[in-house]
């Protein structure tokens, strides 16, 4: 009962200017109150406010974010649809919302603070209305609200992002190698909530006539529908193509294979006759921004996990014949990955640029530059995405920053890969 009175109080509260922790509630200015013909919306706003008070969320740095959710609900950024079981009567709708938000009270706001996800709770009880009302409520984020955009941009300007990171800090990286038993090498890389798998398969093939002394490497990326429902069917193809092309540019160099980050000469077996074809397949399993860097890291880890079978070449009689090769089942050569670059994506938001953007931050980007840099600090490839133009001096500045960041990332990644391989050997 106590909660209900709180709600009522808050409804009264809502009708006036709202202050939270002494800060005026921005979106309610200018008469953008929740429309009164949608009482459930009003109620839910109030209830979320109530939640905030309960969970002490207002004291955290995230608070404007949460405030935003409330604004968003009011401004229609979140759509709210109610499907009560029995009827559409007003009381049941209100009851549903009420009890859902009671669940929110219990579970904390984390669940709904999660963007791009649908928020859903089963309702089984409704303490302040008579009888049982069961139904489902879906909250869906439509996009970022104005206040939230400001919050993200403001945080970046102040070098403190929504998750507490600085501009040039990566999320924690986790590497697991040998996840695909059938491949020659494989790795799974997690960066925050972004998760990708890369696998390397080696097959014997013929080198191309333009580069007889080099092997071939092809990179294909797939976006699994598990990462986001919009990748269902052919929905993920466009992004997959974009990522594959960017990775090819960053790792494989030009058409001739010159200047490639991966040493293609080491894949040659007999000049002009036999070489190794490396098929690198990437799969995006879970997506929360910065997929390209994660894929780059996963490919590096997978390559260092790759064992290429040792090949004995029977001396060919004449130069025209295809030499016979004998692929060993037991002896494997470790692929040399010291030269494989890492990819650093700098995302420009406002006047600043950040590394390892989350999908929320990516939605605010004006443009992004992905640079692949190897151990020696050489640039192996570069791609720019996003519509806005960049000043040439800014690009140079970004590259030098990327070079600096790449050293840290390379060290971190190398130690993670070593740890993962030690783990794999143990098990």
């Amino acid at each position, binding site marked *: 009962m106590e909660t209900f009175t709180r709600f009522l109080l808050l409804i009264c509260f809502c009708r006036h200017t709202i202050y939270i922790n002494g800060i005026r509630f921005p979106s309610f200015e200018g008469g953008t109150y929740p429309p009164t013909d949608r009482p459930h919306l009003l109620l839910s706003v109030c209830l979320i406010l109530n939640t905030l008070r309960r969970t*002490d969320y207002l004291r955290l740095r995230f608070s404007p974010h949460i405030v935003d959710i409330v604004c968003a609900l009011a401004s229609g950024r979140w759509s709210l649809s109610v499907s009560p079981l029995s009827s559409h009567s007003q009381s049941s709708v209100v009851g549903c919302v009420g009890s859902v938000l009671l669940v929110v009270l219990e579970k904390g706001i984390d669940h709904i603070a999660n963007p791009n996800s649908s928020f859903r709770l089963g309702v089984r009880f409704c303490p302040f209305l008579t009888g049982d009302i069961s139904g489902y409520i879906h909250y869906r984020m439509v996009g970022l609200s104005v206040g939230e955009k400001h919050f993200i941009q403001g945080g970046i300007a102040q070098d403190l992002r929504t998750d507490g990171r600085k501009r040039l800090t990566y999320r924690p990286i986790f590497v697991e190698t040998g996840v695909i038993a059938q491949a020659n090498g494989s790795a799974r890389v997690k960066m925050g909530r972004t998760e990708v798998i890369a696998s390397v398969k080696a097959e014997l093939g013929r080198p191309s006539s333009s580069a007889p002394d080099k092997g071939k490497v092809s990179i294909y990326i797939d976006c699994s529908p598990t990462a986001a429902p919009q990748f269902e069917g052919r929905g993920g193809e466009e992004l997959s193509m974009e990522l594959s092309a960017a990775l090819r540019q960053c790792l494989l160099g030009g058409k001739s294979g010159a200047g490639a980050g991966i040493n293609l000469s080491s894949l040659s077996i007999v000049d002009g006759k036999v070489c190794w074809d490396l098929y690198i397949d990437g799969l995006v*399993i879970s997506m929360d921004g910065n997929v390209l860097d994660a894929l780059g890291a996963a490919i590096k880890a997978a390559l260092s996990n790759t064992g290429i079978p040792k090949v004995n070449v029977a001396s060919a009689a004449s130069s025209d014949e295809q030499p016979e090769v004998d692929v060993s089942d037991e002896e494997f050569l470790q692929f040399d990955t010291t030269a494989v670059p890492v990819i650093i994506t700098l995302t420009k938001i406002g006047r600043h640029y950040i590394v390892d953007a989350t999908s929320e931050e990516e939605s605010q980007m004006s443009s992004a530059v992905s640079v692949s840099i190897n151990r020696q600090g050489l640039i192996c490839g570069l791609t720019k995405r996003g519509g806005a133009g960049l000043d040439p001096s800014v690009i140079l500045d970004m590259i030098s920053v990327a070079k600096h960041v790449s050293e840290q990332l390379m060290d971190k990644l190398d130690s993670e890969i070593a740890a993962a391989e030690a783990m794999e050997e143990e098990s």
Partner: protein
Amino acid sequence: MEYVSPEGLRLDGRRPMEMRQLRAEIGAVSGADGSAIFEMGNTKVIAAVYGPREVQHRSQLNNDKALIRCEYTMANFSTGDRTRKPKGDRRSTEISLVIRQTMEACILTHLMPRSQIDIFVQVLQADGGTRSACINAATLALADAGIPMRDLVTSCSSGYLNSTPLLDLNYVEDSAGGPDVTVGILPKLDKVTLLQMDAKLPMDIFENVMQLATEGCKAVANYIREVLIQNTKQLENRHADQLSLSLFRKLLLYGFCSWRIIKFLEKDVEEET
């Protein structure tokens, strides 16, 4: 070819009635409402569930029950020889349909009218029994998403080679040309929801083979139940931790507030004097 040695061992060293090692992990895809990885030996699949949410296409909206959709995809690297298959080929469409129908039978769709539930299954490694592994993964993911179900659905396959019924066929045994019986059951209700077989088999032997697969399903169900209980316990512990943490925060807040008030008052007093 000899699939069962005279000592009664199969190609991968298992006994005829032995299952491959099971492994499951809940919550592999953080963006999804529910997700799980399920492994049966070398077969490894990920399932992600999105929903219940608004129906994407209005024409599919159903006024008295939820719409269930399923998509099955295979990773390029999932099979032995690397192939790039176009999306939505016949085989994956058929398996999507099988998974959808099986899951539809156990989800209490009437509780979620006018909503949609998407089940996405991604095969990471295929070594026989992907169908079963997908169903098991989907069950776990649905449970993780908190979607009301009649019962868990579990699935397992069995076959008949060298006059021996074999449980949980791997790829080599599956492609041997013998019958492959895939069974899906609701373990608590003891009902069969999925039954598929290719090749021919005498009636009495079929009974044995199917019985074996059903036993396999029950074993899988026990394992899945255990995984779910473990997961729930972990959640419970985390909840308890959070509770104590928020209490701590409150105490800090009160402490801080009272300190601020005292400071403020002191300042007032100073200004006055």
